[in-house]
């Protein structure tokens, strides 16, 4: 009966407004959250084009185009540069041979380079080498496999290969230095979309350079830099001024990545702002519902109803509306997820249903946190309203 009595003052339109503001805020928050989870792969996996906030630079072709230590130091000091790493190459001739099953062998001259591991977009525990290792892992550009699969293999009547098969191909590296010659067994560990060279672990290159051509100096031919903002005019000016060469397209994808991160951050910021505003509106709404019943609440309290009993009526209303809003917000997330899917496909981002599970958990956490907050707020308001001496009834002398 107390519920009916308190509900009499509450209009449907008011509850609708309550539900709408609540749904709006929660909907935006959950959609942005879902977007954030789905696009994480875009930024976290370093193999993706969009995470590529790196620029590889080289000097103009000439007799001496190695980078000196001083030049590298200067690069490190630039404010727009986060990390700098150099490519070092082998100071010996390399002959690589492959024995394909039943096809005889293929032998070719090649080269080896290495770069600091933190710039490599392959996370693999086998990416290491010690003098006692049986085989040398190699990373080759993904382009090479594509060239073979779509260019060479069809014409030569050879089977196409994928990254799993490629590991099984035994490679023999014949290294001919100025003072020694060695043969190593090697295999292709992975392919890279980011680094366009044939990479071996740095430990291997240092060891063999030292062993095979101790008299030759090791040069840094190209430099890889991680930059804070690839669109920074200072960066472009710096590269121009020093006549460093770089790939335009590489910088472009870095810019896209930077831009996308910026847009997502802005969307998240606006989402949080709208959510805070909507929570404020909901609180105002609760206050309004309670205030409208001020007299009734006071009278009920002084008849012997406890604050807990009175507050329970409002708790029930806010829980119901919160549950409706959260469900509505979750449905919105599901709709958005499927509407965004084609766009993500275009970006090459694999979205999966797991993000919905995270959003669902987030929705439950939000429900609990908001329900707790609304409950606390309602209890406080009712306690204030029914406090001794503040009652409407004490006006009687």
């Amino acid at each position, binding site marked *: 009966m107390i519920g009916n009595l308190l509900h009499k003052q509450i209009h449907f339109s008011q509850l609708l407004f309550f539900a709408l503001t609540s749904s709006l805020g929660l909907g935006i928050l959950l959609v942005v959250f879902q977007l954030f989870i789905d696009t994480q792969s875009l930024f976290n996996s370093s193999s993706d084009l969009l995470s590529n906030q790196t620029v590889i630079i080289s000097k103009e072709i000439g007799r001496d185009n190695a980078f000196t230590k001083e030049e590298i130091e200067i690069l490190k000091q630039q404010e727009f540069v986060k990390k700098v790493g150099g490519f070092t190459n082998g100071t010996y001739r390399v002959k690589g041979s492959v024995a394909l099953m039943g096809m005889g062998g293929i032998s070719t001259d090649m080269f080896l380079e290495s770069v600091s591991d933190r710039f490599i977009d392959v996370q693999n525990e086998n990416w290491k080498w010690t003098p006692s290792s049986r085989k040398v892992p190699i990373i080759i550009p993904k382009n090479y496999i594509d060239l073979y699969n779509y260019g060479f293999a069809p014409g030569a009547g050879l089977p196409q290969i994928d990254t799993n098969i490629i590991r099984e191909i035994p490679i023999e590296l014949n290294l001919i230095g100025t003072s020694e010659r060695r043969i190593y067994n090697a295999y292709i560990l992975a392919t890279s979309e980011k680094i366009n060279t044939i990479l071996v672990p740095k430990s291997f290159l240092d060891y063999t350079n030292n062993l095979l051509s101790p008299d030759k100096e090791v040069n840094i031919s190209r430099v890889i830099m991680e930059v804070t903002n690839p669109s920074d005019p200072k960066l472009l000016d710096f590269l121009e001024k020093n006549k460093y060469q770089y790939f335009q397209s590489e910088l472009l994808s870095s810019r896209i990545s930077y831009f996308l991160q910026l847009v997502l951050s802005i969307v998240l910021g606006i989402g949080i702002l709208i959510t805070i505003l909507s929570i404020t509106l909901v609180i105002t709404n609760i206050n309004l519902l309670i205030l409208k019943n001020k007299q*009734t609440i006071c009278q009920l309290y002084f008849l012997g109803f*406890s604050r807990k009993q009175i507050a329970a009526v409002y708790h029930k209303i806010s829980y119901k509306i919160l549950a409706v809003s959260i469900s509505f917000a979750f449905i919105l997330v599901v709709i958005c997820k499927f509407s965004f899917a084609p766009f993500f496909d275009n970006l090459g981002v694999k979205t999966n249903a797991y993000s919905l599970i995270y959003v669902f958990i987030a929705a439950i956490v939000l429900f609990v946190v908001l329900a707790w907050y609304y409950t606390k707020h309602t209890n406080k308001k009712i306690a204030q309203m029914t406090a*001794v001496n503040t*009652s409407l009834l*004490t006006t*009687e*002398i």
Partner: protein
Amino acid sequence: MTIQIESIIPTYFTPASSEVWSKVFSLESGSRYLVKAASGSGKSSFFNFLYGLNNKFTGTIQFDAKDIASLTEPEWTQLRREKISIVFQGLRLFPELTALENIQLKNQLTQHKTEAEILAYMKRLDVDQLAHKKADTLSYGQQQRVAIVRALCQPFELLLLDEPFSHIDDVQIDNATSLILEEVAQRNATLVIASLGNSYNIDYTKTLLL
């Protein structure tokens, strides 16, 4: 319940000298008291102090030797449900509820009376035919009778009636007082009635001039 009152004075107005303010006295169970005073002398304030709505006074009030200043919110709620019942001067019925719903609202807290008993009480005060009418459609005198029935629909050891019969005719006053006295006697409760002057033919243990 014995109520011990010691030197209470409201802090928000200065009352004239009386048999209540600044005095030490007690209200005993099974006794009937009339608080008689002109309008504005603080009858409702005195009731509000006893009912815990207002604590702006100096001095002490003790219920069974317990200072009411130390009572917590749940303790007050418990008291209002089971030990103290009141008819406010302003009645405080809910206008959107019917007469019977108003009474049931209070009764449901303790399930003290059955609906049949409530209707029988209403019949004694001649408001049974109004049971299903909205409270705000009743005359003030009818509302007063509904409020009296409501006050009886709970266990109590102290019954506070603040000018309960001001708009009721003499016949109905007699009906009401006999019902009230029966209930009070049955429970061995303390009865305190505030009145502007009329003593309603009740044999009071003591009259307190305010």
